[in-house]
C-alpha cells in the first residue's frame, strides 16, 4: 500500500503560516525531494528573512537563517567550503528580488552549484503586506494603496526572465502551487533543481507562484483563483533555461 503522508524530513512542528499559505505546500515538496534523493544527511538549508524565516524549525536537516536578501551569498560560502554537501536557499520575493537582487544575480552568474527555491507571492508577507518587486500592476498593497504603477513603481519584476540572460545559470523554471497539477510540476522542478546540484551542473532556481491569503486579504478560494488567473498571466509558467 502506498501511503501519502508527511515526510520525516519535516519535523513534527506545526508551522506558523496562515491558513491556506503556499509556503506549507512548498515546504512539503522540498522535504519530499530531499527524502526521495536520500540527501537529508548532507543537506544544508538556508532560511530567508520573510515568512519562511522559521523554516529551520520545520526541516529535519541542518539549517541556517541569514540576513535579509543574502542567502545566495551565504550559500556561496557554505558550498565553496563543502562542495560535497547539498546547499539550498528558500527565499521570498522581497528577499530574493528586492534587497537581495545583487546577491541573486551574481550567485547565478557565477554558476554557484546551489539550488534556489523562490517563493513568489507578489507581496511582503512577513511584514504585513507591503508591495513586493513582484506585486502585479494595479494590485493594492499597504504601500501601493492606489494600485501598483500609479506612482512610478514600475511593472512587476520577472526573475526567471531576468536570470535567463545569464550565461552562468543552469536551470530556471517557474511553477505554481495553486492546483494539484501545478504542485506536481513544482515538485518535479524542485527535484530537478536538486538533482542538477548533485550532478554538479550549477545554479538552479525554481520560482514558485504561491498564495498569501492574509496579505492579499482574500479567502483561500480567492487566493487560488488569483494565482491561477492573475499571477500566471503576469508570470507565465514554464522552463526559462535548461542547460540539460
Amino acid at each position, binding site marked *: 500500500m502506498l501511503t501519502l503522508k508527511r515526510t520525516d524530513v519535516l519535523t513534527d512542528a506545526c508551522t506558523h503560516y496562515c491558513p491556506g499559505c503556499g509556503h506549507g505546500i512548498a515546504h512539503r515538496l522540498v522535504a519530499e525531494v530531499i527524502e526521495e534523493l536520500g540527501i537529508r544527511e548532507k543537506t544544508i538549508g538556508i532560511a530567508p528573512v520573510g515568512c519562511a524565516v522559521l523554516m529551520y524549525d520545520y526541516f529535519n536537516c541542518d539549517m541556517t*537563517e541569514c540576513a535579509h536578501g543574502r542567502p545566495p*551569498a*551565504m550559500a*556561496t*560560502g557554505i558550498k565553496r*567550503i563543502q562542495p560535497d554537501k547539498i546547499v539550498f536557499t528558500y527565499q521570498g520575493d522581497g528577499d530574493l528580488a528586492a534587497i537581495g537582487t*545583487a546577491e541573486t544575480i551574481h550567485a547565478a552568474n557565477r554558476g554557484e552549484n546551489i539550488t534556489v527555491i523562490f517563493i513568489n507571492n507578489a507581496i511582503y508577507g512577513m511584514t504585513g503586506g507591503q508591495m513586493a518587486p513582484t506585486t502585479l500592476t494595479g494590485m493594492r498593497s499597504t504601500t501601493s494603496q492606489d494600485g501598483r504603477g500609479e506612482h512610478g513603481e514600475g511593472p512587476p519584476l520577472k526573475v526567471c526572465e531576468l536570470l535567463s540572460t545569464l550565461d552562468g545559470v543552469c536551470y530556471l523554471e517557474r511553477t505554481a502551487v495553486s492546483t494539484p497539477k501545478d504542485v506536481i510540476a513544482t515538485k518535479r522542478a524542485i527535484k530537478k533543481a536538486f538533482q542538477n546540484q548533485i550532478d554538479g551542473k550549477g545554479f538552479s532556481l525554481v520560482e514558485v507562484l504561491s498564495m498569501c491569503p492574509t496579505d492579499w486579504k482574500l479567502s483561500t478560494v480567492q487566493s487560488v483563483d488569483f494565482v491561477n488567473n492573475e499571477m500566471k498571466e503576469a508570470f507565465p509558467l514554464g522552463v526559462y533555461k535548461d542547460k540539460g
Partner: protein
Amino acid sequence: MGKKILLKGNEVMCEAAVQAGCRFFAGYPITPQNEVPEYMSKRMPQVSGVFVQAESEIAAINMVFGASASGVRCMTSSSSPGISLKQEGISYIAGAELPCLIANVQRGGPGLGNIRASQADYFQAVKGGGHGDYRVIVLAPASLQEIYNLTMNAFDWADYYRNPVMMLSDGISGQMAEPVEILPYKPIVDLPAKDYILDGCKGRKPRVVKTLVLRPTDGLVTHNEHLQEKYKCIESELSLCEEYETADAEIVIAAYGITARIAKGAVRLARKKGLAAGLIRPITLWPFPSDAFADVAETARQILTVEMSHGQFIEDVKLAVNGTCPVEFLGKGGGWYPTEEIILEKIESMVAASVTTAKGEL
C-alpha cells in the same frame, strides 16, 4: 630567529592568515586594502583554499558568514566605507557566535573622504557600528611584525570565544613595507571542538545556526545575557596592553596602532630632553585594558591621548581613568598624520601649562 622578508602590511596580514589556516577569503576591492584580495586571490588556490571576489562588501561578509558556519577559518577585509556596509552582517555573525576575521584598513572619512590613513572608525569598531548589544574583539597592531603575530592569534581567539575579531589597521600600516619574520603558526589556546558546524546531520541531530530568537518571549533576552557573560569573560581574559616608560612618567601618552608607534618616538625625544614622558598602548581596543589605564592614571600627572581622529579613543581613556587624572587631546581626522615633533611640542606645552598652573596655585 627566522629570515626576515620585506612585505607590505596588508600582505603580512594575509600571509599570517594563511599560516594560521585561513582557507576562505571573500572581499571586494577598495583602496588602501587592495593588496589583501590580490594576495589572497593568488594564495588561496595554492593552499586549496577558496577566494571569492564578491559582488559587494555585503555579499562578502555574508559569504564569510556561510564559510564560518561550515567550520573553516575565514576572513574578509575592506576599508572604511566598505566596513560600514558590513555592519549588518557583523551584527549577525556576532549574534550567531561565529568566528571570523574582519580587517578594516582605515582611510579618511566621512563619506568617500580620501585614501590616506585614518583612525576615525574607532567607535564603529569598538562600540559597534551595527545594531544590538554585541561585541567584536578589536586588535590594533603597531608594527608589521605585530600584524603578523596578532593575525595568527586573532583566528585562535575567534575560534576560542566563537566571536568575530576585527583587525583595525589603517592606510599607513597596510601600505608600508617592513621586514617581518614569518613564524610558523602555533595555536596559543586550546581550541574547542566546533560542535556548531553545519555539515549535514549525518549521525547526529540537525543543527541550526541563527540569530532570530522569537520563543520563548524572553528568549532573546536570555541569549543576550549569555552573550554578555561571554563578553565579561573575554574582558577578564584578553585585555592586552603595552606600557613604555610609564613607571615614572608624569605625562603618559595614550595611543594605539600606528599612532602609538609614532608616539613612542615622541616619548624617546621627550626623555632625551629630560621630560618624564611615557606611553600606554592598548593592543586590544575591545576589550579595553581599562585596569592598566586606571593604574597609570594613579601615577601620571596628565594623560595625552593622540589619535588620527577627532576624539573617539579618548572616550575609552576617560572612562577607564574616571576623572582621576586629566586627559588632554591631540588629534585630527581626514588623513592628518602626527609626527614625533608635533607630539613632543604638545607634551612640552602641557608641561609648561602645568608649571604655570602650579605657580598660579601658589
